């Protein structure tokens, strides 16, 4: 199981702040594709992904128990 966190506009689009999924040994890119099929409108805009609180690349492999955050464009300050 992995945990996926949703923030800001993505929370509103999915209706969730987090969920647990069976997904490991595959890439960040594959996870995003799967989630985009599941949630309409999720692909709008640039989404970055963090694995265990650090930014990840599309080709990085997601491991069992990872905490994945979907990060829409940030706007702090």
């Amino acid at each position: 199981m992995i945990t996926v966190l949703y923030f800001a506009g993505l929370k509103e689009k999915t209706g969730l702040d987090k969920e647990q999924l069976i997904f490991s040994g595959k890439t960040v890119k594959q996870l995003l594709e799967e989630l985009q099929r599941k949630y309409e409108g999720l692909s709008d805009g640039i989404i970055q992904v963090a694995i265990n609180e650090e930014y990840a690349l599309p080709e990085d492999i997601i491991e069992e128990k990872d905490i994945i955050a979907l990060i829409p464009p940030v706007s702090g300050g």
Partner: protein
Amino acid sequence: MKLFEIVETVIDPEPYRKAVLHASAGAVTVFTGHVREWTKGIRTIYLAYEAYIPMAEKKLAQIGKEIEEQWPNTKVAIAHRIGKLEISDIAVVIAVSSPHRKVAYEANEYAIERIKEIVPIWKKEIWENGQEWIGEQKQKPIVEGELK
């Protein structure tokens, strides 16, 4: 208080200024970002900030480390508030000390630019007739140094 933190209550800038002070600090800059009433002709009623708290605090600390490596003898403290903020409330405070003044300005401005690039915090503007999550389109492609 922590040197790099996300808070849910009113920010008082003074503790952050004092936290970066030391005997060879000749200059301290304290930047505070406030909720503005008017943005491009639209009146803001209030703002709502949300953060991925543990990652945001890590990224604030990373910015502090970048500064302390780039400009010797600087010291940095940063706090960002989340939740509902009213007009004139402080959303962010950045304190930078340095032996000399020029660096204190430059490094402080670097910190706010980096916050807007890499720290997972989001702002929702609530106007009289609507609301929107703001994305500043400032995110750059991920580069090697930012990977885990």
